[in-house]
Structures are given as structure tokens and as C-alpha cells.
């Protein structure tokens, strides 16, 4: 497994940089050319949502992206620091640890006018091969993945 991590200030201008980095690494990891537009759009949506949330709740905090290849999958995790307690409350298990939420289910829960986030997550759910969303009081984590060549970053 090889991982690239990137943190950036919650500024709209940096979302494009995050998209470019994610697309470049996806290509290097062996994601099919036909899927690269989907990676670019999904990562852009996740980062835009995070930037909008940070601008409301915590403009000084950075947003983190992890990109890794593991067992033939290219996986991107976008983590923000804006509280999503309402989502956590709606989806948490009784006395259990935070559980991932299916992207489509979460999108249906979010009001459409909440930072366009419900819309953005719905788009991500349609684009990524697999999406999991982890809401918590400390922020929202969106993990998405696509199939990649098994000889990707780790051996390139």
C-alpha cells in the first residue's frame, strides 16, 4: 500500500489543486482512463462540500485528503473538521462505534439546501464505485474507491 496525503486550507481555489492531484495519482495507480473523469468530479464534490462546511464552522482548520492504492483499489478519503452531529445522531448505532453510512442514504437525509451537500454527496454516490460516509461531532469523512490495476503505486 502506498499513500499520498494532502492537507489544504478551506479555500475554494484549492479544490482544483486537490482534483488535479487526485486525478494524477489515480492515473498512476492504474485507474482506467474512462473512470478518471468520475474520480475528478467525485473528489471535487467531496472537497467542495468540505470547503463550504469549513467556511461556516471552522475556516482556520485544514481539510485532509488521503489517496492510496490497496488490493487493486484506488481509495480516496476526504476528512473535514466541521461538526456533523445531526447526521451522527441520525445514524449512530446504540452504544457502538461510529458506523459508515451508505452515500445514497446520507444524501437523502441531507436537506438539498444544506451547503448543496446533499446534492454533492448524491453525485459522489453516483460516480464512485463504492462510497462510505462517516459522520461525527468532529467532522465528516467520505471514503470513495474505484478499481485500479493491482500493480499500481506500490510498485511503480
Amino acid at each position, binding site marked *: 500500500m502506498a499513500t499520498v496525503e494532502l492537507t489544504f486550507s478551506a479555500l*475554494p*481555489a484549492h*479544490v*482544483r489543486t486537490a*482534483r488535479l492531484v487526485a486525478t494524477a495519482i489515480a492515473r498512476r495507480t492504474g485507474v482506467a482512463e474512462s473512470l478518471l*473523469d468520475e474520480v*475528478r*468530479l467525485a473528489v*471535487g*464534490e467531496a472537497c*467542495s462540500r468540505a*470547503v*463550504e462546511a469549513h467556511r461556516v464552522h471552522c475556516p482556520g482548520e485544514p481539510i485532509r485528503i488521503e489517496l492510496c492504492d490497496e488490493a487493486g483499489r484506488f481509495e480516496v478519503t476526504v476528512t473535514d473538521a466541521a461538526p456533523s452531529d445531526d447526521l451522527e445522531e441520525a445514524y449512530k448505532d446504540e452504544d457502538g462505534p461510529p458506523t459508515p453510512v451508505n452515500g445514497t442514504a446520507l444524501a437523502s437525509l441531507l436537506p438539498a439546501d444544506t451547503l*448543496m451537500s446533499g*446534492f*454533492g454527496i*448524491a*453525485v459522489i454516490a*453516483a*460516480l464512485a464505485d463504492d462510497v462510505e460516509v462517516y459522520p461525527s461531532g468532529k467532522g465528516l469523512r467520505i471514503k470513495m474507491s474505484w478499481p485500479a490495476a493491482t500493480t499500481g503505486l506500490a510498485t511503480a
Partner: protein
Amino acid sequence: MDLKLDHHTEDRLTIVEVEGEIDVYTAPRLRELLIDLVNKGNFHLLVNMEKVDFLDSTGLGVLVGGLKRVRAHDGSLELVCTQERILKIFRITGLTKVFGIYASVEEAKEAHGRDK
């Protein structure tokens, strides 16, 4: 690539030329232009997206906002787009049923002429 915007009016139809990327950073400029055009009485808009490289949900929100504004004046906001990568996001979100989408400016102008 940044966003380049231009517009001109032909026979009551205002054609907005968009080039580059429409995302969370650049979408406010397109929003301002659409609001300005509507405020100046341009209620029939055609947004040419043939040179758009990237469009996300923020950009879609701006287009939907523009459509809402022109409809308040019995106007229209239609699009020219043949790029599959851009059309895909309209399909995913079901917005192909909301916007008139044409293959060329000429085709849109013909349709607009028929509707007048």
C-alpha cells in the same frame, strides 16, 4: 484553466459563452453574470458550454438558480452541450429533464425562433 465568460444578444436571445472550469471557486462569477443579465432585462438565455472542461454541483446550482430567475419573468435558460463528460452530471442529477439541451447554438436559435 480559469473561467472565461462572454455574452452577446441576438434577436432577444442572450448567448452566454462559457470557457474553462465551473466549480466552487469560479461559479460565483457565472452566478453574478446571470443575475446581472436578468436584472438588465435579458430573460431568454442560452448558455454555450461547448468549451467547459469541468462542471460540478456548484455550477449546476448556479444554472438552476439562473433558470429560476428567468422563469419568474416567463423567460428561458437553455444550454448547448455535446460533451459526454458534462452531460453525465446532468443525467446523474436528472437535470436533463429541466434544461433544454441543444447540440449547437444554431439548433437552439432555431428552436427559440419557433417558440417565439
